């Protein structure tokens, strides 16, 4: 996994995504209850995510996920591996 990250710079964890940018979910690295919670929000492979805004302290960050605004803490976002989509794609 680490090698892949080095080769393709568009692949990162969600917390590294710049505000206003879009990405596509590749993999959830969380387990247990956190993983289940994230799945509940509709975070499965290929889901489009947009970073919307940071809270005053920079953490948590609000993301657009399937039409809802969901705030995720750094700990959770860092366990979500995404692929950055350079051009703004038609979001759902």
């Amino acid at each position, binding site marked *: 996994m680490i090698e892949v990250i080095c080769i393709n710079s568009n692949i990162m964890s969600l917390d590294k995504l710049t505000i206003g940018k879009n990405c596509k979910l590749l993999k*959830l690295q*969380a*387990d247990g*209850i*956190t*993983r*289940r*919670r*994230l*799945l*509940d*929000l*509709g975070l*499965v*492979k290929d889901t489009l995510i947009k970073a*919307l*805004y*940071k*809270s*005053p*302290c*920079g*953490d*948590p960050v*609000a993301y*657009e996920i*399937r*039409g*809802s*605004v*969901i*705030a*995720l*803490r750094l*700990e*959770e976002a860092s366990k979500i591996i995404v692929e950055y989509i350079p051009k703004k794609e038609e979001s*759902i």
Partner: protein
Amino acid sequence: MGLTNQSTGLKTLRDSFNVDLQSPDDIVIALAGNPNTGKSTVFNSLTGLKQHTGNWPGKTVTNARGTFTHKDQKYILVDLPGTYSLLSNSVEEEIARDFICFGKPHAVVVVADSTCLERNLNLVIQILEITSNVILCVNLIDESKRKGIDIDCRKLSEELGIPVVPTNARRGIGLDVLKDSLHSMIRTKETLSPISIDYNEQITNAVDELCPLISPIIKDDILDMRWTSLRLLDGDNSIIQSIVKYLDIDLSTHNEIMDKIETIKEDLEVVHHININNLREKIVSSIIEKAEIIADKVITEHKKQHRDFDRKIDKVITSKALGIPIMLLLLGIIFWITIIGANYPSSLLSNMFCNAELKLTEFFNWINAPSWLHGVLVLGLFRTLGWVISVMLPPMAIFFPLFTLLEDLGYLPRIAFNLDYFFKKCCAHGKQALTMCMGFGCNAAGITACRIIDSPRERLIAIITNNFVPCNGRFPTLIALATIFIAGISGRFSSVIGTLVILLTIVLAVFLTFGISRLLSKTILKGIPSSFTLELPPYRKPQIGKILIRSLIDRTLFVLGRAIVVAAPAGVIIWILQNITVGDISILSHCANFLEPFANLIGLDGYILMAFILGFPANEIVIPILIMSYMSTGAMLELDSLQALKDLLVNNGWTMLTAICTMLFSLNHFPCGTTLLTIYKETKSKKWTFASFIIPTITGIVICFIVAQTARLFGFY
């Protein structure tokens, strides 16, 4: 596993939801849905029950039930907790799932938010896996129209294979249609054949293998076999426990089933590389994919940018520079309006009660009533009542609607978003910001709301620290003292200064909450913060009329009623304590004298401390008790303005320091009786109830001691 056991299990479940069937013909309807879909509004509109609704997840913390009659048929409606899924990730989801599976509702009404239908469809599809008697209520249809989203409900109904009713529950639109479709669903007893989900081949095969082993043990009409099998393969232990609880069947003792599950799991992992983690992911993906396909067919969006407005507002009110200042400003405006608005009606009411007291006194003289009777009833009971009403009613009648307005707009989750970082640093749960906000209304309500926090450790922290934010019973005390001692009664900027002082008090309260939470999580409640996600729901147009009615009736009258019930007997007791003398002085003075040395150390006096102790039943009556105790020593009879209150307090030795210490002690002392009782009910532990009692008290004593001694050391006062 006879019928009796099953019905016992069912009875327990229905009992816990408070469902009492008066006749076997009564129809039980479960109301399910995602959080923030207006589910409670649908519930209230159908049943006419005035249940408190807030615009954020978890406010349905207790399972409400209500009834309504339609076409001579009685329906019992059970409001399930709002959940995103039924895959038992939380207590709320387990409750909702268990009621749908084992509570045997005749039908389930799923309320969905039409502005984000796709995500809501996940839950609909999950419920359809369990039961086919489902009606989908596509709510907030006015909002989606405004946002340019068209939903083809007829098509949606065809796709799902169940009735679909568009509603706007806030205006009561579509509810009759909803009732009609419930009626025809129950009457015709038609069996719907809703869609089923296509899992991939390996999962389908695995389910097919397991089903035949379970079906002889659990009857098919009790639980859906395929759904149950899938849960077992998914490693969901809570379903095994629920089956024991409600059906009295213990699957874990059936070795052939347990072995089979293990073999299938092994097979999936070794041959198909599907382990426990990605099995769940595959299940969820299949459901989401189905929802996507259906949503694509029925939703047309005309205005792509409909969410931009909300986003723009959010960007500002959660920004680094403005987020927290705006939060303080909004709170400040609310308190400022409360302070300036409450002044006039307060003195009006106070005058009214004074006149009434004179008339009552004349009446008592006229009938030649003994003076003790006049004392107990007029000087004790009536005067205290008059005080509680004239001091408390105007600020509450202004403060509650304004606070409800913020709540209705959807601002509270944004507060949680802004403050979450601090809570995380304190190893506490982000939702504690929400329960803290509830605490501004009433600490007891805030403590009940702590049920939205799953982790027991974080929940205890939220419960114990809830009392650090001042509730509405304490605001009048704080506002009155801040106005007369710090801001000055007259003067151009007095209301602004008063507001700033109150804001400062609140900031202090929030910091104390952080500090004590952190202290707790480093000492007796050690642990790391659990995972947490927070939805920021779309802003909703508040309904001014409903806010007024709801906040006035539900909250203002409720709190005032409670205060009166407590204040009336307290008034009598205090009058008696004042007027029975032992030696030369009254019992009250004896007590106050006894407390005096200690009270003096923390900047108070014996009477103030006594008032806080006597005010244990309700914080609202602390100031009235104080006034009564002081008035018995002086000759002053009329108290019709804040100036008079100031004179009274100053004559009894109050200084700015006394006022500050009293405010600090009001902020940090033992919770009121109702709150403590709620804490005991929620924690079921004497130890934690005691902790909730002693921690704020010690904090208050320490803070007041430091402030008082420092001030004296430097020669002020």
